[in-house]
Each structure stands twice: as C-alpha cells, then as structure tokens.
C-alpha cells in the first residue's frame, strides 16, 4: 500500500499506509489526524479538508475539477499554489511517499 505522511500544525507527523483508491481525507479522518475536519464526509461540499501538498508531488496529483477549485476559493486558511481538498485526491502508487500539511484553520 502507498504511504503518506500528514503533518499537523503543531508539527506532529503521522506516517500511514493507505489502500489504493482511498482519499487523503479518509486516511486523515480514520487515523485521527487533527485539523482535517471534512464536515461533509467527502462530498466536495464544505472545504474543511484543505491541505498543502509537498511541491514534489504536485504534478502527480489528479487535475483539479472546477468544483474543487471553486470550493477551495472559499477555504478559511490561505489558499496557495499547492492547496487541494483532500477528499478529491485518491491514493495511487504514484503518490507513494507523499507529504501533506494541515493548514492553521479549516
């Protein structure tokens, strides 16, 4: 299974193996990564699963749909060039070893 490292705002890191196809949001919620809220449960409805993705992996991510882009605009924390909604990113072998940071606020 591909692995992912989540880094919380206080620096705590979680290295977790996620099944192929699971979203980065699901991995965070089920493994108790603090700071990813995901109120809507992954429906791209609430923009509370915002993450910053390690620049090295940006070109390996699935392209952003218009919907995600629009939701991100409404995210609470600063939106950067490496911002994504983690409910829209599924784990693949290409993403093995990815690192994502949790923003200050959701």
């Amino acid at each position, binding site marked *: 299974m591909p692995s992912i490292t989540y880094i919380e705002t206080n620096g705590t890191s979680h290295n977790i193996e996620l099944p192929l196809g*699971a*979203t980065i949001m*699901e991995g965070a*919620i*089920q*493994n*108790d990564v*603090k700071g990813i809220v995901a*109120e*809507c*449960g*992954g*429906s*791209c*409805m*609430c*923009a509370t699963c915002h993450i910053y993705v390690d620049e090295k992996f940006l070109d390996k991510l699935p392209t952003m749909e218009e*919907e995600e882009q*629009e*939701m991100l*605009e*409404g*995210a609470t924390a600063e939106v950067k060039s490496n911002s994504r909604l983690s409910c829209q990113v599924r784990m693949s072998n290409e993403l093995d070893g990815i690192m994502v940071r949790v923003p200050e606020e959701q």
Partner: protein
Amino acid sequence: MKKVVVIGAGHGGVQVAASLRDEGFEGEIVLISEEKELPYQKPPLSKGFLQGKQTEVSILFRSEQYYVSNAIDLRLGVTIASINPKENYISTVNGEKIDFTYLILATGAANRKLRFDGKEPKNVYYLRTLSDAKWIGQQLESANNVVIVGGGFIGLELAALAVEKGKKVTVIEAQSRLMERVLPEVISKVFYETHIQKGAKVYLGACVNGIQDNGDVVLSTGEALPSDLILAGIGVIPETQLAKEAGIICENGIVVNELQQTSIPNIYAIGDVANHYNPFAKKNLRLESVQNAVDQAKTAAAHILGKAVPYNAVPWFWTFQYHLKLQMAGISLGYDDYVVRGDTASGKFSIYYYKEGKLIGVDSLNKPADHLNARKLLELGIHPAKEEIRDLSLSLKELVSVS
C-alpha cells in the same frame, strides 16, 4: 470520575465523543449504537454508496483503532430499553445497567411509514441504515420498474441513481412541486425538468391510495402503476420514546435549551431529535442535517467541559441529484423577497432570500463558492444590498472581507 454516555452513533453521537476527547475530557466515554457496524455516515447512502462510488469502509467516521486509542468505549448492537434519570443510569434490553454522570441523546429519527387503513403495506421499503442501503442496492440489480413515493431529498436522490442504473422510475409527490417544504419554485422547477429529461416520470399533487400485493401502486385517480420495487421517503419522526418514558419534556422532538440540555440538566439531546430555538430561523424547530448534528455535539461537549457557548451555527444542507449539486445556507422559510445571482438557464446560480430587508438564506445550485461565501455572510450578519447581489462584477468575497 465523570462518565458521559452517548446513545446513538450517527454524526452527532460520534462528534460529541470526539469533541470531548479533543477538548481534554479525561473521564469515561461510552458510545452506544443499536447497529452492529462501526459508526458510519448516513448521507452517502442515498448518493455515493448506492452509486458504487463509496464503500462500506470509506463511509466510516473513524477506524476501529480510533475508538480504542481515544478510550471511547464503543458498544455496538446494543439497544437501550430505558433511562432512569433519578439514579442516573440507563438499562439495555438485556438488563445491563450503565451509569452516567451526563447522558447524551443522539437518537436521531425514524422513517415515517406509509399506512393505509392503519396498516403498513409489506412491500414498501425505506432507506435509513447501511443494511437498508445494501438491501435496496440488491433489489435495484433485478428491478425494472421502480416507484418512489415522496419527492423530497431522499426520494429524488434515489430516483436519480435508479435512473442512472437504467431503471424505469416513477416519482409520486403529494405537493404541487418537488421539495416544496424547503425550496422555492424556481429551484423545484430546475430539478423537475432534470428528472423528466433524464427519463423519470413525475406525478405532482398525486396521492397514493393503496398498494396491492402484486406491487401495483394505486393513485387516488384510480391509476395503477405497476412496480417491482417500491421505495418511500416521506419524512421522519424523531426518536423520542426513551426520553418521553423518562419524563423528559418532548414536543416535536426532545426540547432542549441553547446549550442542548433537556428538561433534565445532565441529560442532553443533539441532532435530528433535538427541538431547539434556532437563532437563524428565529423559532423552535428540529433540523435534520449533518451541520446541525455536528455543531450541537460541539455545544454539548463544551458545556460538559464547563464552557457555556450557546448553539448559534449557520444551518447548511445539501443534495446531489444527477449533475445538480444544491447547497443551502441559512433558513429561507418565510422570505418576502429574493434575488437571483447568475443565470438560471445556465444551471449555475444562487438565490439570496430576504426578509424585511435582511438576508436570511442562500441556495446555490452548482455554485459552491457562493455557498461558502453565503455561510460567512450569514454568520457575520452581513446583509448585502440586493443590487450588490445582482451585480456579477462584484466579488462577494469582498463583501465579507470589507466588513
């Protein structure tokens, strides 16, 4: 040591346990679910789960390990028979007593059932639990004619996914338009036209008079609609029985104050079951939504930890049907005027509802950024002028940041 017992492990129940731990509660937490499965989210059942896009695992709130590492004593498949509020314990149907310092009722609601002459027809099915969803999924494999009674969110979400599976679908709605209770005509119309265009048959203002054993659904006009699967989504009834029997005040749900306390101060109620004064609706009501369950859970958890923070969260809801993603913010019931932002013909627009000149709610169709912005406007109590809403050259984000 203090002990919190939570009855019900939907959005509210799981959140209250999680919030208590997040905020430093060190006592015992017992989370009780009547269902045997690990706690899961219900909204995807009528959407991604039945569409096959989400799985039993992906809809779980948390992994099993989460409950263990957070010392949340999760009791699955346990039905509670009664509450003893004088001696602070509850009893399971098997006679086990579980004592509590604080009790949280997150019992949710049950589906309202179709009845004819006082009897429930045997061949009508309802969606509430994972096992209901699995059963409906199986039936949808072989069914050809699906009749859906109720043109509300659940009925229409089911209709959309049945049509997508190639079924012949008929929707029967008693009101004169779809989702009438919560949406204005302009939005009902977009949904109606979409359902028709996708191939569903929709009867409005239609009444079901009876259901035959052979699956015929008989309307009040005498017309009989043949079916091999009948699903109904005709509203819910709050699960108040335990509370009522314990002498807790109930009236359209369990009555709570702004801190989620019932008429017995160490017993709280949250989520679908809680009849509360809602500052956005300016009246008492129950809300059946994820937002309400989660935010009321946080209010109750905070109060148990000694912080009295009255419930005052902007209500929001959503539904998915085909390509239509509708997000609702605030409570728009009782509006006296509305303004459309965007072009209704494009299928991407928002409606801003006003009452006495004040913004009270916003419905956004395929306009997620408007929705998030609307929640901020409502939360901050900003009331943009109607001309500002109509002016597409004006960024609504600025309205929030300027203020």
